[in-house]
Each structure stands twice: as structure tokens, then as C-alpha cells.
């Protein structure tokens, strides 16, 4: 649904995006993660058609996004910091959105009102707190029935109950209408619960992009204890050791490779104890970047 190919963007000599590729399948919930300054917001702004690429292409539903209102009309966008015009209240914003989006669903708007009950429709939205403004943004955007949702830190500032409600609305939309969602967040635990695809961005490049299952199957945490006097043998070809620590006779290894083949290879060393544990998205993120970022290497050490 979203295809970004070879996207490059420079900001006054600083390469924000470096030949970036990104693919979001239709109906997927795609988590875009990366350290600060990796280029997540920049990619999103290209996907929304706000930024002009230096090179490369950005397509949504098979069409370029730049200056294409037809494509933008099927997209909804909730940035980290939503913009409301001066003195605009909810009723006024609804009229604005109705005039821009032909897909705006009045019925849904009224239905969603039961969720966002704390918002006074007649009060200027700028006078609300950040969390309330975010609720208002969700209310408006979801009322447009977008086919593609692009979210940047979407639930940042929301209370836990509202977070759950917002995700619930969003995921039911995905389930019922096949909405494609691209979500950028630093809250990896939350993303792990909702995403089925993940892309890790680092210094403007896509470090890896897989389905979450594939990703979690491909990296494994191994805890093994060897018999006294035995040394850990080098890993066979096809496996990559991302991290290793030793405590007494217990070795803790983070290894990238196919899980079953890895288990067989390690079992051949006749360990006393051998456990293969799945990694959380947060751990995967940290260990993947550990090979790239000196700062993260230090954390791991």
C-alpha cells in the first residue's frame, strides 16, 4: 500500500534519508522504529506529501503522493503535535474536514463522540491539554474513514484508558475495513502488541524491515551452561552473534539466525542447560542497533 523507494533527503548538507526503502502491505499495521534523529518523521512527512524528495519515489496505493489530492484524500494523519487553527473549536474543525474530505462520515463522527466525551465541542481546541488535543485529532481523522493512517507518536500524552480505547478503535478499523496503518513510536512494548510489521530506521537508512513474527523468529536469546572444562565453540556459518555475556558457567547469547537450526547446532556442544527464549521488540531493537550505534553498544556492555 505504501511504497518508498530509494528515498534521499538532505537538510543543508545533512543526509536525513539515505536511499531509504520502505514497504507497507495493505492492511498491515507497520511499526516504524528508530533512535532519535534516525529520520522517522522525515519519512512520514514524505509519505504525507509535505516534503519534496531530493530523489526517490513515494507512492501510496500505487500513485505518487506529491501534489496528488486523490491519494491524500484516502490518507489520515495524526502527527505528534496536531495543528488547530486559532480559535477553532470541534464544530469548526469538523466543517473544515468535511470540506476537505468527501469521505467524512458524519454518523461515525457522532458515534465517536461517545468515546471522546471529555471534549467540549464549543471550546477552542488550542485551549485543551496535549492529550485532549490528541483525542480531538483522533476523533476528526477517524471520522474521515481513511484507508491509510499515518501516525507519529499517536498515543503520546493520552492516559492509559484512552490509549486502550484509541488502539481499540484503530484496530477494529483495520480488522473491519482493511485500513493500512503506519505508526512511528518509541513505545516498543505498545507497538509489539499492535504491529504485524516492523521497520528499524538508523541514520536515514532502513536497517531491517520484516514481519514481527519473522523478526522474532530470526533473533533469539540463548542461555546455556556447558559442562566443566568445556569451552563454547564458534558458531557455524549462517549465524551471527549479536551479543554475548558470561556469568560463571552460564553463557547468555543473542544470535541472529534460523531458530531450529540454531538449536540443533548448539545442542551438538552438549550443554548442561540450553534454553532458547524469544526476544521482545524492545530487545530486538536494542541488540540490532547495538551493532551500529556506539552509544547502544555501551549500554549492552
Amino acid at each position, binding site marked *: 500500500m505504501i511504497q518508498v523507494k530509494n528515498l534521499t533527503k538532505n537538510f543543508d548538507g545533512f543526509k536525513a534519508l539515505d536511499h531509504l526503502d520502505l514497504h507497507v502491505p495493505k492492511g498491515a499495521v507497520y511499526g516504524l522504529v528508530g533512535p532519535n534523529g534516525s529520520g522517522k518523521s522525515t519519512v512520514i*512527512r514524505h509519505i504525507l506529501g*509535505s516534503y519534496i524528495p531530493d530523489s526517490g519515489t513515494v507512492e501510496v496505493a500505487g500513485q505518487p503522493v506529491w501534489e496528488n489530492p486523490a491519494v491524500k484524500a484516502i490518507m489520515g494523519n495524526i502527527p505528534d503535535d496536531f495543528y488547530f487553527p486559532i*480559535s*477553532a473549536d470541534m464544530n469548526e474543525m469538523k466543517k473544515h474536514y468535511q470540506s*476537505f474530505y468527501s469521505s467524512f462520515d458524519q454518523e461515525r463522527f457522532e458515534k465517536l463522540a461517545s468515546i471522546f466525551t471529555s471534549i467540549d465541542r464549543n471550546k477552542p481546541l488550542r485551549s485543551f491539554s496535549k492529550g485532549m488535543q490528541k483525542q480531538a485529532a483522533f476523533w476528526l481523522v477517524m471520522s474521515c474513514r481513511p484507508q491509510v493512517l499515518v501516525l507519529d507518536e499517536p498515543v503520546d500524552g493520552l492516559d492509559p484508558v484512552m490509549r486502550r480505547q484509541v488502539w481499540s478503535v484503530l484496530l477494529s478499523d483495520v480488522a473491519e475495513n482493511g485500513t493500512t496503518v503506519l505508526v512511528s513510536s518509541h513505545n516498543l512494548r505498545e507497538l509489539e502488541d499492535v504491529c504485524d510489521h516492523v521497520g528499524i530506521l538508523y541514520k536515514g537508512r532502513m536497517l531491517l524491515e520484516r514481519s514481527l513474527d519473522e523478526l522474532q523468529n530470526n533473533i533469539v536469546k540463548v542461555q546455556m551452561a556447558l559442562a566443566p572444562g568445556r569451552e563454547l565453540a564458534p558458531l557455524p556459518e549462517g549465524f551471527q552473534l549479536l551479543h554475548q555475556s558470561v556469568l560463571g558457567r552460564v553463557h547468555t547469547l543473542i544470535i541472529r539466525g534460523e531458530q531450529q537450526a540454531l538449536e540443533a547446532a548448539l545442542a551438538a556442544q552438549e550443554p548442561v542447560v540450553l534454553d532458547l527464549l524469544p526476544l521482545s521488540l524492545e530487545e530486538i531493537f536494542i541488540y540490532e542497533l547495538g551493532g551500529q550505534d556506539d552509544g547502544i553498544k555501551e549500554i549492552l556492555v
Partner: protein
Amino acid sequence: MESKRSWFNRGALRLDLHNSWPIWAGYTLFWLVAANFMATSTYTLREPALEMARFWENCTGLSVFFVTPIYGCMVAAWLLRGLYHSRSALAIHALPVQRRQLFAAHLISGTVFLAIPTLVMAVYGLVRFLPGQSDLTQGLVAMGQSLGATWMMYLWCLGFALLCGMLTGQLWVAVGFFFTFNFLAVGLAVMVSDLCRKFLPGYASGGGLMEAAGWFSPWYNVGMTVSHYQGTLNGAGLLTGYALAGLVCMAAAYLLYRKRPLERAAELVIYRPLRVVLRWGVGLCSALFGSSFLQLLLGSTSSPVRIFVLMTVCAWVGLLATRMLELKSFRVLNLRLTGEFGGMALVLALFMVALNTGGLGYVTRVPNPDKVDHIDLSLYNQAYYGPVAGSDLELTLTDRQQMEELIQWHREYSQLLLQNADYPDEKYNGVVQSTEAAAYGTRSGWAEEYHYNSMMIRYQYPNGGSMVRNYTVVTTRQGVGDPNDPDHQLAQVLSRVDIPAILESWAPYSQIYQMQEGVSYDAGSRNRAFMEALAQDLREGNWQYSFLEDPAFRDQEAQITLNIDYSLPESRGLVQGNGFDVILSEEYTPRAWELYTQYYQ
């Protein structure tokens, strides 16, 4: 209406118009208050039958010179406000709308913002003045002219402000650009002229430079040109020109907008190549304006080294400040900026060297006699006292031999000026002191030392072009009769000019009218008769021409100055003044006095 290729977008227009009422309502309110004040002013009541016409004529001035430019800039700033913050810019451009539709919405909104107040004012004008107007046609014509002038000025201001707004990422910088660029060219031209006048003897400002500067200083130019009085709107062509230029600015603004990088919102300059232009522009402007200001503070002697140092320091300050604003940081000094400092100093040094060595041939440029159609000479004596005080003369030389002699003198004089750059200044300073002493001291002071004259030579070419030089010609008592003195040589040249023939060729009315200063009288038949009598006297040799080299200095003969401008009858005695404040007195100009009293009293 909203097809795929449409420039119209309902949502974009709605967004622009939403909450915009304070803009046009404030403007309308201002006009209603101002109009009410103007309508009840005594000026308009003097002509009750033409009240409506006079009212709209008054409105034109206030509108075109003051209110409309400010309003046009305000409207542009309001329409583009979303571009100056990253958050709003990104939000607006993520909406399903094209940039051309957003821009078209700005233009439609901008038009609406003036249309409403215009309509209200038109209705007000009609309701207020319609009853009792004997000449409604004149009133309606004046209304049309006034509103038309307002619209044309508005088109220019809106278009230009939109263009300024597109160049920058900050709202206040956009407003600053608008106001600065409306006056910058003429300010720079004045500064450059001032500098050239210091270093280039004969330098004449005006002509092409000032005219171009005027055109590129629209607000100033309109203020100097447009007037609406007694049914005539002067400068309508100029306003039309600027209105068209405004449309071109709108087109340029749109082209820039199409490629505007939103990530640069809040930056000083949006388009990178313009950053260097801005830095150097501010640097050079700082050099000119700053050094002039510092010279005023420090006391001005025209030492080229001193001016160069002042200019360079000011230019560096300008460069540095602009760079700081660009990067929003005080830590901007690096190798690149140091290089720019060096480059700026080099440019200014070359400029000053060029000025100090004759301005690339400017000082010694004198046309060949065969290329000149005729020469206009204007000579103004600026002494306060004495028989030649204030005597002014305007001549047109058409005789080939006279022109060749003058050109030959000009060549020699310009060479002398170039060889001795201090020549006019030194003398000039001496003269000022001397004349001041004369003015406040003894009346005989003028005769002891110097008097000085300004002279303008205009070479008119057959193709309509011209070359102008202005000189301060200082006549010294010591130089009188000295064949090596250039002023004496000039006097000799001028003495051979056939004054009576020239006088006859003048258009007497216009000449008298041009040369009067602050005194208004009819150029009627008495003037013609007087001029004719004067010409006759000259033909008969009753008078002797004396301008620079007055015989009265040497042998006490009666002398006549060509005081074609005759003062008010009260100005019989010696009156302190300069330039055109001419002394006509029985004592010093008996024959002229006789003629004057014969025809004017």
C-alpha cells in the same frame, strides 16, 4: 467546479476566509471613520456642488500613499501565516489539496478582503453625497478614479508582499522585506550618489540611476508621482504599471511556492542561493548607510581611507548579523565567513580605488563635439552678498564653435580635477568659511576673497540621450584675469556666448516661471514685454554680460547680472539668501531695475 485540474478548492478557501473578518472589518471601519472626518472637513465644504468629487480625491491620497500599502502587506501576511510554522505548514500541506489550489484560495481571499471595504465605501460615498450634488458625473468619475487607484496600488502591494512572504520563513521578516524593498533602491541610490559626489568631480546624480531607483522603490515613487486633484488622476499610468508588476509578483510567488521546502519554515531565507544574496546585500547596505551615519557622528572629511575603513567595518557587522540570524546562533565565525569578510573588504577597496581614480573614466569623460546636438548650461551664483549675488543663468549653446570651446574647456578642467582631487573641496571649504564670515561680519567680506558658483552642463545627443555634469566653480579674486585659471577660462568662453540671441530663443514664460522661487505670479503679457525689452537692451549693447568674471571687480564699471528671476517688489535692498533669491536693486542693477519698475509697478 472542483475537477482534477481545478485551481479552486472549497476547503482551502474556507480555511483562508475562516476567522478573517477582523482583517477586512478593521480596514472598513478605519475608512468609515476617516471618510466621515474627511467628508465633514471644511475643505470639502467650500465647494458644496463638488463635495463628492473632492471627497474621493482626498480619499485617494490617504489610500494610495498610506493605508493600502499597509493593508496589502497585512493581507498577504495573514494569508501566508500558515507557512511560517513547521506544524501548521505540514498540517495544511498534508490535506488533500494542491499548492496551486491553496495559492488560488489566497488570491481569491485577498480580493474579497478589499472588495468588501470598497463596496462599503462606495455605498457610503453615494449615500452621503448623492443628495445635493449638482455635478454627479464629476463625483462618480472621481469615485471611479479613487477606487481604481486603490485597487491598482493594492494589487501591487498584495503581489509584492506575497512574493516577499515566499522568500522567507518568518512572518516579520516578510513584512520587513516588503517595507524595505519598497524604499531600498532610492535610499541606496542617494547613498551611492553622495559617495560619488565626494570623489567624482562633476558627478551628477539623477538621470538613469535615480529614475531606475525610483521605479524600484514603488511606494516612494507612487508618493512622489500620484496625485488626484480637480478631476485629474496624475500617475494613473504608473499605478497601472505597478498593478501589472503586482500580477507578475503573484505569478513569481506561485512559482516559488510550488517548490517551497516546508522543512525550512522559520528560517530567515527559504531558498539557499538567496542566503548569499541577502548576506551580501545587507553587508553592502550596512556599508553605505552605516558609514554615512558614522561619518555624521564623527565629523566628515572625505578621506578615502577613512571611508573605506568605516564601510568595511559596517559591512562586516551586517554580514555577521545576517549570518547569526540565518543560523540562529552567535557562534557563526568560521573559515567560510572569514573568506566572505575578505571578499567584502576587497570589493569595497576596489570600489573606493575606482572612485578615487576617476570612477573608471567618469571624471574625464567628455563627448566629442560632433556627437553633441546642443549643450544646456545652468549657472547659479550662490554668494550671499555683492553685485553678483544670486545671479543665475540658463543657456543653451547651439553654435558649433561655442560648443567646441566649451568642450575644450571641459576637457582641460576635468583633467585638472583628476590631477588634483582636492581642488574643488579645498576651495569650496574656503568659500564657505569666507561667505559665512561675510554674512555675519562685514559686508565687504565678499569682495575680499571668493565667491562660488554651481554649474550644470548637459550635453544633449541627437538620439535624445544626454550626459550631465555638475561642478562647483570657485571664483577667486586672485584668479580673475589670470589666463591660467580654469574659472577665468570658463568666463572667457561664456563671454563669447551670444547672450541676446540666446535670450530671444528662450520661451519667456516658461523661463520666468522656472526660475522663480516660491513666488507665484502669472506669466502674462507683462512678462513677455519685459523679456523682449531686456533682449532688446542686450542686442543694443546697453548691458555687459558678467557672470563669473565681473568687471566691477576690476574697474568699478556698472555691471548687470542676468537676474531673470525677479523677486517680489519688497526685495529692493540686499537680502540675505542664496540661489534664486536674487537681488534686484536700483543700486546694483539700475537698468534692470528701471525695466522692472516700468513693467511691474
